[in-house]
């Protein structure tokens, strides 16, 4: 009887914990979207900011975030493609382990440390001041592990027999990469890229000192001393002024835009990830 009670109680506690977690997050997402959509309008996403964020829209924050994210992706995708192919096809065991450890380490570096390092390197050493390029490259390094891991996972799920068959046909290693690995691995790279976009779009700390300002920037025309506005930085600054009710609507609206952007990017990656997982399990 006591054992039965323990079983029931244990099950109930676990189920309750799961339900509470889900409810907590439904509440968080619901709050942001519900309050945010109240603040959204066509003019909010198509106009520039006025009155220090109390009026107007966030079109240049959206543009700035797009510039940062696209720069990061443009820099990270070729790096990840090269690194992934190298890891699977060319690297010796020791080099492979060293590189994987490096990736793990990069993935573990707190984002503010990226900000600090980027400030020292781009702002001070290269004298770029605040620049969209500095922010984009920093974000590229941050999301690189995500891209490489997703790409390599997909590459490793390619059946060995396919690769052996390609070599058996007399193809050289470079040809195998071009005709087998890249076409089959591209969905992994795409998954990683989507996850990377989600991460890069939402990061504040790396662009704090290197790329973002709160007002007075539109579309950059050069590299050095060409900062951008950005969605997360906008929320960050407004949140410090949160006692002013006039700012509330702008905050919620920006948060909703950012959450929708990030969630869409990572949601798009889900079907691809599930498929790769299944293939890997079948091997």
């Amino acid at each position, binding site marked *: 009887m006591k054992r039965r009670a*323990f*079983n029931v109680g*244990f*099950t109930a506690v*676990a*189920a309750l*914990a*799961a339900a*509470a*977690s*889900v409810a*907590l*997050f439904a509440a*968080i*997402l619901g*709050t*942001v979207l519900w309050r945010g959509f109240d603040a959204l309008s066509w003019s909010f996403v198509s106009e520039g900011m006025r009155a220090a964020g109390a009026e107007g829209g966030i079109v240049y924050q959206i543009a700035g975030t797009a510039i940062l994210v696209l720069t990061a992706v443009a820099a990270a995708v*070729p*790096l990840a493609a*090269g690194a992934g192919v*190298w*890891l699977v096809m060319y*690297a010796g065991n020791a*080099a492979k382990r*060293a590189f994987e450890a*490096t990736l*793990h380490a*990069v993935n*573990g*570096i*707190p*984002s*503010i*440390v990226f*900000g*600090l390092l980027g*400030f*020292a*390197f781009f*702002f001070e050493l290269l004298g770029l001041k605040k620049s969209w390029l500095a922010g984009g490259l920093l974000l590229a*390094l941050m999301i*690189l592990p995500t891209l490489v891991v997703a790409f390599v996972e997909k590459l490793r799920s390619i059946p060995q027999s396919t690769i052996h068959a390609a070599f058996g046909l007399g193809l050289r290693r470079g040809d195998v990469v071009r005709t087998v690995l890249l076409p089959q691995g591209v969905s992994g790279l795409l998954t990683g890229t989507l996850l990377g976009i*989600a991460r890069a779009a*939402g*990061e*504040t*700390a790396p662009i*704090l000192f290197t790329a973002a300002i709160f007002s007075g920037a539109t579309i950059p025309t050069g590299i050095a001393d060409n900062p951008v506005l950005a969605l*997360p930085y906008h*929320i*960050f600054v407004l*949140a410090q002024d949160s006692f002013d009710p006039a700012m509330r609507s702008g*905050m919620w609206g920006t*948060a909703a835009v*950012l*959450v929708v952007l*990030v*969630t869409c990017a990572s*949601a798009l990656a889900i079907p691809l990830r*599930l498929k790769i997982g299944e293939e890997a399990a079948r091997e």
Partner: protein
Amino acid sequence: MTAVVCLAVGGAVLYLVAGSLTALRQEGWAFFTTARWSYRHGEFGAASMLFGSIAVALMALLLAVPLAIAAAVFLSEMCSRRVRVALKVAVELLAGIPSVVYGLLGVLFLRDWIAALFDRAGVDALSADTLLTAGVLLAVMVLPTIATLSDDALHAVPRVSREAARGLGLTRAETIATVVVPHAAPGLIGAVLLGFGRAVGETIAVFLVVGRADNRELSLNALFDAGQTITSKLGGSETNIAAGDPMHGSAMIALGLVLLTLVLCATLAAEGLRGRLAGAR
């Protein structure tokens, strides 16, 4: 390509270590043991930031770990495959919500709730921007990470072990408590360590609710008062100010190095534990 990445990482670590030396040489152990940080007086004792960082992370774990592991037990052991995949997807989407959004929720809701709590408990606090507020907010932020990693660890326990235990007549709860959880313990500890690393390294959300008050005493009472973490210090305007003064700049870099060391130790230990689990399978 690969060489570029390795060089960049190597260069970064070298920069942090070399850059810290000036300040660490001046302060010695006092950098870690004294709570006196004043760049106007050229004093750099980071003890209260170190205390703040560890305190908020531990509070977050204290609140999040029981809930996360209980939820993981449900995910891994008690629901169907479809429900598990759906919940895991939801959890991972939510883990991806940018920290500035959590910070915003902290500023607009959690701060008021903590203020109400202080009123009811009779705590005489000047504001509700406290280490406790940051800890509670971080608990919510690390919950999905710990839950999904714990679920991975539990799920990796071989089916045979469960079947053997059930075959001996144990109930499901007894099987989980005496076989599955002990078996998955290294992975669970790894999940908690990764959660710790995330909590210590989190900047933006903490910055917004921690109060950012320097040089507070190191005591339990300080948890209910404004404080400072390493990350909130680095995220503030002092990083810009410090660029003009070699000693001050070096002290800020040393903070970055301490933070990185803390987080990397937790992350690498966690990877080691989780790797052992995967290897054992």
